[in-house]
């Protein structure tokens, strides 16, 4: 907290904080207000005398209902949820094992392997999708959820591995050694001692992985083509923008509903993932 006179706290703390919060929340407000505005207000020219972009006196749910009934939005949500969950689980499973091995086991090329995994994470998706498209075609996975479930781990596994590697390193080695003297095998020591302690780390890796795959755009755009296979991020964009016509109301309603699951997960696990990021283990 900033000490001193009242005005100092206002100038250095409350005012900048409020500006920052407004700046962050404005897009969400814009999404909300646009999705409940009737069409006749949305498409009113800005020179019109009664132009009021930040407020509406006739809120309506017509965009939301049309999004839910006239488009495949619910189907897209289900697709996205399924793809994000499965790819997150796969990545977490691999990430936990790889992170543990790289941080704890002494084997040849462990360091090199760690760096290698990190470098693959640096290759931009906008380059990687070209060879991946070839692979997807060869395995005839195009236009199925599996095209994404199997490609998302290419960036999720390195991400989870590195996050968890740091977390495992922070857990004192003696805990595991003690467990092994107490009668646990390496597997059991990992399962009963390391895993429970690493829960905050594993949860935050999971949350980030889930968010990354929920928001992913380019692979979903390239590997899926039929409307009923699409994810939210691609579906809303491709089905609600027809040529140069933007269905702003439905678009914003879709964006708003699409961010709800992620916001929900974050608020639910916020304590865990803060602990996971700051990485504090006390013995």
């Amino acid at each position, binding site marked *: 907290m900033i000490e001193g006179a009242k005005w100092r706290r206002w100038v250095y703390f409350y005012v900048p904080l409020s500006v920052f919060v407004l700046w962050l929340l404005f897009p969400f407000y814009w999404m909300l207000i646009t999705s409940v505005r009737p069409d006749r207000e949305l498409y009113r020219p800005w020179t019109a005398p009664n132009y009021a972009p930040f407020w509406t006196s006739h809120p309506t749910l017509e965009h939301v209902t049309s999004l839910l009934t006239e488009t495949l939005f619910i189907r897209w949500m289900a697709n996205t949820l399924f793809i994000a969950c499965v790819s997150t689980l796969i990545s977490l499973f691999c990430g936990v094992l790889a992170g543990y091995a790289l941080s704890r086991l002494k084997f040849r090329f462990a360091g090199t392997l760690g760096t290698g995994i990190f470098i693959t994470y640096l290759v931009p998706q906008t380059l990687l999708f070209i060879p991946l498209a070839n692979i997807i075609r060869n395995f005839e996975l195009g236009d199925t959820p599996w095209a994404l479930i199997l490609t998302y781990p290419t960036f999720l596994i390195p991400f989870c591995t590195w996050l968890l590697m740091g977390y495992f390193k922070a857990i004192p080695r003696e805990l595991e*050694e*003690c467990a092994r*003297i*107490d*009668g646990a*095998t390496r597997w059991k020591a990992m399962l009963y*001692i390391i895993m429970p302690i690493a829960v905050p780390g594993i949860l935050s890796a999971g949350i980030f992985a889930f968010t990354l795959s929920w928001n992913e755009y380019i692979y979903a755009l390239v590997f899926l083509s039929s409307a009923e296979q699409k994810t939210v991020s691609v579906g809303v964009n491709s089905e609600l923008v027809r040529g140069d016509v933007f269905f702003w109301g439905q678009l914003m309603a879709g964006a708003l509903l699409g961010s709800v699951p992620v916001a929900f997960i974050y608020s639910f696990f916020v304590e865990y993932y803060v602990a996971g990021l700051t990485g504090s283990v006390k013995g």
Partner: protein
Amino acid sequence: MARVLIRNLNKKYDEVHAVKGVNLEIRDREFVVLVGPSGCGKTTTLRMVAGLESITSGDVLIGDTVVNDLPPMDRDIAMVFQNYALYPHMSVYDNMAFGLKMRKFARPEIERRVREAADILGIEDYLKRKPRQLSGGQRQRVALGRAIVRHPQVFLFDEPLSNLDAKLRVQMRVELKKLHDRLGTTAVYVTHDQVEAMTLGDRVVVMKDGLVQQVGEPLELYNRPANRFVAGFIGSPAMNFAKVSVAEENGAICAVNEGMRLTLPPLLGARLRAHVGQEVTLGIRPEDLSVVPGGESDGLSFPAVVEVIERLGSQILLDVKVGSGAMVVAVEPTMQTKVREQLRLALDAQRLHFFDGRSETAI
């Protein structure tokens, strides 16, 4: 209960030869302390006995079994770590029960053993707490409890008292000693603190640079150190050393340097006769020096100038200048002296030590 036998044990890392041909027998029910400065290989030796570190060459036997290739869990040992290594997500009870659960003990037996250990250590009231809710001393007790519930053949202690404050350390030291008397389990204890080593050990092993320097009962190490390193490491305040040349005058052996000229009694002289004309190191403990009235010279006293006076309460330590060298003298707390005063110091000929100038072994 079992003995531990270490035969020609070696540990090499890529560049470092950390443990060099250690031979040691720890007898059944014995409390043996490995002591030495950091990096002397004592912890590595302990970890090889525990099975946490692979053995480069040599054998470790627990009972009559060679355990070189047995995983830690099959060696029937318990270990207490410096940072306690309590499982942070488990209650005190579960911490202590973990080893028994892993070994598939029946629930009533686990309960009985944990209660028994908690009773011995006085931690019954904390069984439901998490480690983070305990003080340092309490955590240390839980770590001990976790070791004793298993009724292992051997206890291994890796500097278990180092994280405690000085007062608590003394208290836990006494309790450890009592605990060992009560349980009688063979114990190997690693520390860098020579006071801990002397007070706890039935026998003490002094190590340096991966080599065992001397093995013996505490007073044996104190009274008859095998070399200059042990002499300087054991005992507090540390032994005084002075370089002297050995000469023969009128049939008596003398030890001479710029600050002192000692005529040694015949028995002591005989030991040094082979070193006439050579330089050796004289060692004398601060408590074996005394201040005598000036003037008289019987060949076993020398002049000194007081430089610093350290009043410890139970005794006074005088840092004095002898020739160009320095010595520490422990005197009675009632002694009256002041800085820069000229004193005459006498040494107890029975308590003199001599070390070879080159090999540094005791003469």
